[in-house]
């Protein structure tokens, strides 16, 4: 798996008397998409917040690109980007201004050019000079992810990136994520949608009751669990298939 981008050992965290993480271990390699799958309250966001230096763990070790999240937070922050549950954009600024602001904060050499090329890459060029609060949900998320790419961090955390998005926008985000990992970025993705983990993840960790109960590739997980059964069933289109078919290839203007 080449270099290790993230390594987590025995991570624990409690809030008041509620034990959220009871010893979580996993590793993520460069260019790998790792999905943390779990129901609400399973500790996905807490794990991401610890790894992105927002929350201090009670116990255990976590390293990002070899830097300890507690002892070397400054170096960790240079190596990561967090895309939280809500699109963290300034609605009063235009898409372009949002990108330039982050580029300046990250100390990127040419903020304006950086913003321009990201707008191109995320198909936001036409909307570049419109205020971001006028964007659709999918566009906001794309801008949000584009902002996270500035400074080419080695690790990107995506916390429930498609929650609240319509099916079309969800697919847009999926394509973006696949492209990112292709470029060598390690991605930690949290999701409660099984389909999303199946679509995107190289490896999946199932977080339940404060521990990672299973980790593996989709095919490994499939092997562990009830053997495949051969059944003959009529393939009905899912509602999603129908929905996407009806609206066709509608492009965002």
């Amino acid at each position, binding site marked *: 798996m080449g270099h290790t981008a993230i390594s987590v050992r025995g991570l624990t965290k409690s809030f008041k008397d509620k034990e959220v993480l009871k010893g979580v271990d996993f590793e993520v390699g460069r260019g790998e998409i790792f999905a943390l799958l779990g129901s609400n309250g399973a500790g996905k966001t807490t794990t991401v917040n610890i790894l992105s230096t927002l929350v201090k763990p009670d116990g255990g070790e976590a390293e990002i690109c070899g830097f300890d999240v507690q002892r070397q937070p400054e170096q960790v922050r240079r190596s990561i980007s967090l895309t*939280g549950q809500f699109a963290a954009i300034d609605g009063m600024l235009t898409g372009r201004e949002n990108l330039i602001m982050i580029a300046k904060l990250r100390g990127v050499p040419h903020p304006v050019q950086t913003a321009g090329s990201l707008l191109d890459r995320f198909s936001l060029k036409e909307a570049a000079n419109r205020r971001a609060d006028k964007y659709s949900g999918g566009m906001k998320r794309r801008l949000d992810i584009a902002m996270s790419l500035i400074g080419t961090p080695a690790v990107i955390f995506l916390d429930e990136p498609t929650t609240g998005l319509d099916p079309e926008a969800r697919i847009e985000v999926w394509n973006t994520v696949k492209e990112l990992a292709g470029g060598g970025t390690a991605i930690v993705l949290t999701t409660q949608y099984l389909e999303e983990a199946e679509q995107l993840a190289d490896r999946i960790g199932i977080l339940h009751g404060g521990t990672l109960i299973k980790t593996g590739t989709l095919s490994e997980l499939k092997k562990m669990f009830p053997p495949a059964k051969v059944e003959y069933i009529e393939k009905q289109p899912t509602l999603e298939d129908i929905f996407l078919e009806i609206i066709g290839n509608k492009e965002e203007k």
Partner: protein
Amino acid sequence: MRNPTGVLLGRMMRTILRSPDTIITVAITPIMMMLLFVYVFGGAIQTGTGPYINYLLPGILLIAIASGIAYTSLRLFTDVKSGLMARFMTMPIKRSSVLWAHVLTSLVSNALTVLVVILVALVMGFRSHADLLHWLAAAGILGVFTMALAWLAVITGLTARSMEGATAYSYPLIFLPFISSAFVPTETMPQIVRAFAEHQPVTSIVNSIRALLYEGTVGSEIWTALAWCIGIMIVSYFVARRAFKHQLG
């Protein structure tokens, strides 16, 4: 590398200039109050010195700042809720620069509001013969007062659970000038009220600004005024820093 406080200050000033209504909204209540007190109640109020608008203006400016401060809480609260705060916190920038940017934004936007109110007061007959130095001193006191309240606003902006909660704390601040020497001399007040009025920060600030603008002196109360403002600022600063650290778990 660019200074993050400057970048974030630029971002917020752009936001404010794009919605100038925030400055107008903040200026309107104190202007209405000024009209009401000068043209309705003013004739019956005996302050003993010069035109009533001159007497009234310093207190009105404090009310303008106190109501403008609510927006500082609101802007910070919005940043926390929208996730922008988390984004900034996970970036390689000095964390305190985010708070300083909010405080400096408050300083600039309140200065604009104060300027609007002074312009209206000029139209209404406000005059001062103070020289530049005394004007600068008066501006300095207002600036320190704004910073003190802005750090207070940081605490509520960070800890509030709702938008209403983030702004509600400014109401008592807006009310404070009424029980002070801002509208009428404290001498006419009953003993207990007078004792309160003379020992709360607004009276010493208002009296100092009056001394600077109309008497050409720094007055006797300027040190009390500065002590209040700087005291409030230091305490709020440390409480705000604590709240900030605490919030980061």
